[in-house]
């Protein structure tokens, strides 16, 4: 089989082609075409086709991650969604759970986003379910018909229905949907119990509306891509990467687009975990530092940690997603001195790509993290293989303005900017490790993204997570993650019951029924019987606690599953996360079946180690300032470094789109997969 992963980034489109029979892998990179992304994609397919001598018609599967859905929300470019709710609940999205930010008086300066379904496009329908699924008041079908007609005439582009307690009984929602299909045959209709059949009305409604909101945007994009592929006779299956790092078919992505909200970051995390696992590290922290933001995540057992609650902008989305912590710190983050206190602060404001850091020479004058790295000498004044020269004087001038206000010299100020942005990123790494009860020392740090290599060594030293692993080409990591991903989906129901009152047979029967749905879906995704697997997750908490913890139950464990064993497993995890267990009983909240379809992952090419001496790859030296002292530091060309090479810090390793710093007291070695592994020098 020929499987191809495609990652469309802001600047480049990366492609990776894997022949599952011959185990050959080809890589290609082409400029992205933001106006119409499929142009760049098709160009890439042509390039890689020439490399591998494979025509587009021979491809079997094309695996694609996309940020189109997230961007639609952040840029407010989604569909106009009409929302039908239970009588008395029209203001649910407007009231937005009443949340205002901290601290005290945070409301003074809070700018609240408008709901993604307009107040004016929300209608109520009489009829009410109780929380146990019994009918309190029958649905008023005439009112439902009138609401649908009204919204249709107002010009909404999609209809969603989210009624109170629909998680307990979907009957009323299905009735409204049926009426809607009759009254407004041209409109897509979605109901909350299909999109997210779990309790908590606000989150379920937002998730359902968001699903409809991003649907046409994603649909247009995928259709244009599909058309483009068809034009070059690439008839391969187009599969889309989900927020949890799994794959699903084009049809599934179209029916539940809200599962692609974190598709982009999930690919990078998945790729990082795959590369690291091949290199022998199955517990990693991923560190993806770009221009404006940094994403970090934890992977354990070679797999990303999955959460069921995430946020897009300020909106809560309940969909299985790779647990990514994102903060506003990147190469473009602006350093400034606070008016009232004189404190040095870095970000979250960013110079972005335009004007960008001062050293880009596009008119930016404010010092950024990138400028500080130039001043320190960590970033030699050439990027992208020498294509873009950096304006060192402009970088100095920008950092000098900060330095004079702090009463420091320019190099100390630059070091301060780097230290502070590191501290901010350290906060994010702590959130995904120590705050979850995970000791960072048991993890390796996998660095990618344009700015990651400049900061990874310093961060690992602060957090104590070695080695730092820098893959040979971070651009291709996402594409590799796509190719390594499994076909995946989740099926869930809310089932609230005290563990001690739960009958194990009933629990197994309910999970079994969900497994039936999962298996049916896998069949629909054309996964062969032998490649199908269904695992289980039981969301559990102490009675009436606010947060559930997902407890994994393997496929093979279901027949012998007891409530006692489940409860004990939950107690252990709770103790790890929060430091204590409670005498009160456990309570089951939701049941999930996780459908997975195995795929053939590529073998990453191995290289036989050569001599340790890296001098053949040395490209020169560069002046670096450390502790107020200038020193000449060797620079190496990453492309020339062979497996087995050993570089002692202080050193700079350059590649065409990224630079890696090896700090004094540390050693970088090149492993057989050409990863750079940085660790403290053995003492």
């Amino acid at each position: 089989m020929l499987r191809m992963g495609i990652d469309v980034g802001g600047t480049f489109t990366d492609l990776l082609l894997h022949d599952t029979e011959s185990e050959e892998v080809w890589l290609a990179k082409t400029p992205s075409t933001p106006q119409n992304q499929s142009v760049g994609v098709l160009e890439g397919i042509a390039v890689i086709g020439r490399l591998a001598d494979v025509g587009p018609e021979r491809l079997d599967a094309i695996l694609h991650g996309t940020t189109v859905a997230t961007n639609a929300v952040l840029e407010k470019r989604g569909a106009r969604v009409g929302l039908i709710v239970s009588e008395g609940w029209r203001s649910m999205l407007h009231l937005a759970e009443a949340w205002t930010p901290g601290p005290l008086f945070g409301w003074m300066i809070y700018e609240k986003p408008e709901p993604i379904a307009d107040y004016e496009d929300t209608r109520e329908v009489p009829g009410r379910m109780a929380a146990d699924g019994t009918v309190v008041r029958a649905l008023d079908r005439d009112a439902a018909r009138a609401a649908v007609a009204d919204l249709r005439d107002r010009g909404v582009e999609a209809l969603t229905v989210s009624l109170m307690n629909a998680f307990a009984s979907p009957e009323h929602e299905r009735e409204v949907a049926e009426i809607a299909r009759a009254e407004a045959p041209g409109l897509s209709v979605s109901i909350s119990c299909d999109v997210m059949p779990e309790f908590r009305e606000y989150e379920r409604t937002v998730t359902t509306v968001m699903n409809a909101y991003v649907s046409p945007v994603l649909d247009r994009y995928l259709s244009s891509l599909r058309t483009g592929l068809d034009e070059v006779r690439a008839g391969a299956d187009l599969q889309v990467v989900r927020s949890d790092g799994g794959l699903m078919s084009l049809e599934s992505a179209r029916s539940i687009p809200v599962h692609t909200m974190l598709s982009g970051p999930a690919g990078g995390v998945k790729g990082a975990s795959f590369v690291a696992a091949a290199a022998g590290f199955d517990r990693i922290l991923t560190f993806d530092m770009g221009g404006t933001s940094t994403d970090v995540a934890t992977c354990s057992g070679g797999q990303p940690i999955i959460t069921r609650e995430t946020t897009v902008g300020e909106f809560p989305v309940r969909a299985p997603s790779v647990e990514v912590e994102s903060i506003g710190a990147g190469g473009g983050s602006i350093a400034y001195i606070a008016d009232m206190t004189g404190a040095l602060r870095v970000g979250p404001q960013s110079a972005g790509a335009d004007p960008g850091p001062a050293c880009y020479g596009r008119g930016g004058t404010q010092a950024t993290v990138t400028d500080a790295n130039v001043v320190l000498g960590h970033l030699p004044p050439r990027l992208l293989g020498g294509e873009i020269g950096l304006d060192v004087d402009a970088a100095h001038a920008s950092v000098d303005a900060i330095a004079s206000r702090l009463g420091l010299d320019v190099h100390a100020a630059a070091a301060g900017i780097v230290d502070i942005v590191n501290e901010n990123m350290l906060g994010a790494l702590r959130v995904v490790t120590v705050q979850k009860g995970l000791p960072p020392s048991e993890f390796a740090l996998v660095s990618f993204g344009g700015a990651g290599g400049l900061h990874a060594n310093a961060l690992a030293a602060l957090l104590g997570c070695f080695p730092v692993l820098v893959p040979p080409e971070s651009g291709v990591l996402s594409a590799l993650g796509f190719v390594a991903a499994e076909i995946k989906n989740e099926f869930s129901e809310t089932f609230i019951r005290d563990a001690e009152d739960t009958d194990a047979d009933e629990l197994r029967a309910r999970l079994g029924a969900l497994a039936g749905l999962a298996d049916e879906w896998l069949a629909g995704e054309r996964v062969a019987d032998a490649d199908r697997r269904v695992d289980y997750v039981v969301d559990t908490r102490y009675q009436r606690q606010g947060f559930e913890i997902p407890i994994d139950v393997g496929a093979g464990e279901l027949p012998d599953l007891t409530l006692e064993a489940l409860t004990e497993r939950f107690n252990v995890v709770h103790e790890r996360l929060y430091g204590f267990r409670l005498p009160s009983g456990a309570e089951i909240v939701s049941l999930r079946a996780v459908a997975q379809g195995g795929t053939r992952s590529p073998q990453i090419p191995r290289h036989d180690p050569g001599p340790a001496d890296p001098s053949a790859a040395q490209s020169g030296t560069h002046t670096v300032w450390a502790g107020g002292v200038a020193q000449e530091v060797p620079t190496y060309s990453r492309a020339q470094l062979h497996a087995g090479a050993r570089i002692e810090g202080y050193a700079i390793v350059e590649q065409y789109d990224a630079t890696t710093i090896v700090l004094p007291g540390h050693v970088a070695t090149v492993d057989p997969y050409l990863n750079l592994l940085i660790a403290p020098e053995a003492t």
Partner: protein
Amino acid sequence: MTQTAVDPITLDLIENALINARFEMDEVVRRAAMSPTIRVQHDEFPMICNERGQMIVGQFGSYIPEVIERFEGRIEEGDVVLLNDPYLCKGSISHCNDWLVILPIFHEGVHVGFASMFGHMMDVGGKVAGSQVNEALSIWEEGLRIPPVKIFEGGVLNETALQIILNNTRTPIVNRSDLMALIGGCRAAERRVVEICERFGRATFSAACDALLTRTRDAMVRLIHQYIPEERVSFTDWVDDDGLGNGPFKMVLTIWRDGDVCHVDWTGTSDQAPGSINFHINEGLCKLFFGIYMIMAFDPQILFNDGLYDVFEVTLPEGSLLNPRFPAPLSNRVNTHTRFFDCQSGALGQKAPDLAMAAGYGTSPAFVFSGTDEHGRYFQFVELLFGGIPGRPIADGLDGHSWWPMFRTTPSEYTESYYPVRIDHYIPVRDSGGAGLHRGGTGIEKLYVFTGPGEFTVHDDRALISPWGIGGGRAGGRSHKLLIKADGTEIELPSKVDAHPVQAGDRLVFRTAGAGGWGDPLERPAEEVLRDVNRGLVSRESSERDYGVVLDGNGVDERATGELRARMAQDRGEVPQFDYGVLPEGVTVG
């Protein structure tokens, strides 16, 4: 400890590390707590202090020296102090529901600081479920008072003390879990502070704490010089009643600047109430509230810490609503607490337009429903409700949002899954947002339908005195409670009700107050008024009466609107700085 200089970058690093630690405390507590008040509504507050007990980062007033004095220096590693008696910590916590823990932090055996948190417990005993007793005449009726005790001593839990404490609450399992969550939060801070000491050195940490205190003090002095006038500025507002038929209670605030110091004088405030609305506020906390208010308006990233204590001088008349004598009841102090903030806005806003916020819903409305379910099990449901956020310089107030930071409504599907009550509607109250260039937020109305017997308790305020508007903005709508019995009988209720029995089929209409508007309503863009009318937030009558906006079938009648607005502007004369709405007889603006 000898003086150690700390370079500006290290200082900023330590500041960041402390801020990260402070948010980690919140995160640990919210995830591990069991009660909805903490885990959903986030009624918990963290702080990290230096070895002298001065708050370096956090969100409440330091009281640690007063408490620690009681142990005569015998505070060891592994100790955790618990207390909830407001009269034994000079009002750092101001009612018995707040349980406060203090954990001394040691690095290599040397005492370097304290971590502390308090959180609102579901119940601490006393006369009514939830322990917020409208009818209490003394603190003896408001539940168990815990003096500072070592609940952990040298790392060992004092199970005996804990058993006695928990046995005096209606919700022992929940309280136990919430208490452990608070201690877990403090332990997180302890680990972080120890890490900071290891990274930068103990002496550097201590010096950085001092520098952070100085930095906040200096910033505060600048803010005070810019925004506090030398002449005296006064503002008056009222708390409706004390739940026993007394009131309204007057609160008078006068502020002025003398050199670097801002004077905050509450002389003229009513004597303490017989009922439980007394707010025993710690002087330091009073200073902190002024500091935070000004910091939030100008640079929210400035650390709130004890550094600003030196630049405020506070007068809290003894025996007044703000400084009651033991054993005055305190449990419902939130009304007075919030009115304190309203007075702050009214006084600061007169000379500094950037600080001018209108009044909001003015309390923390609460609904408590308890009883015994059909299986004979005791249940107790507590939820907080929200109302109008004040009209603000930057924008409209938010409708039905939380004045208190990071609170959330309890999902109704959660409530209905566990308790014999259904919530039939949850809507903004039309016309309850005070008119203004920036409209005040509306109050909300919830309709509770009881599906089984029990008794409910209600806490609210601003049923009598409206939330005022500022700078031409109009007053917002008042709160209201109505019980509709299953047979259709309607019973008007006051805003404070204790343990009222109900049967299945009874309904309670719970309406909270809105907020005052900001700026001249005649200048509000007509399309915004139209949008509010379309959303059902403003009536057509109000559109004409308060905004001078005339609507026809399709939208704004531009010509009629222009004429009406011109006429109204001419007829109304001078616009007062504050609009109090309709004041009850005998209440005067002072």
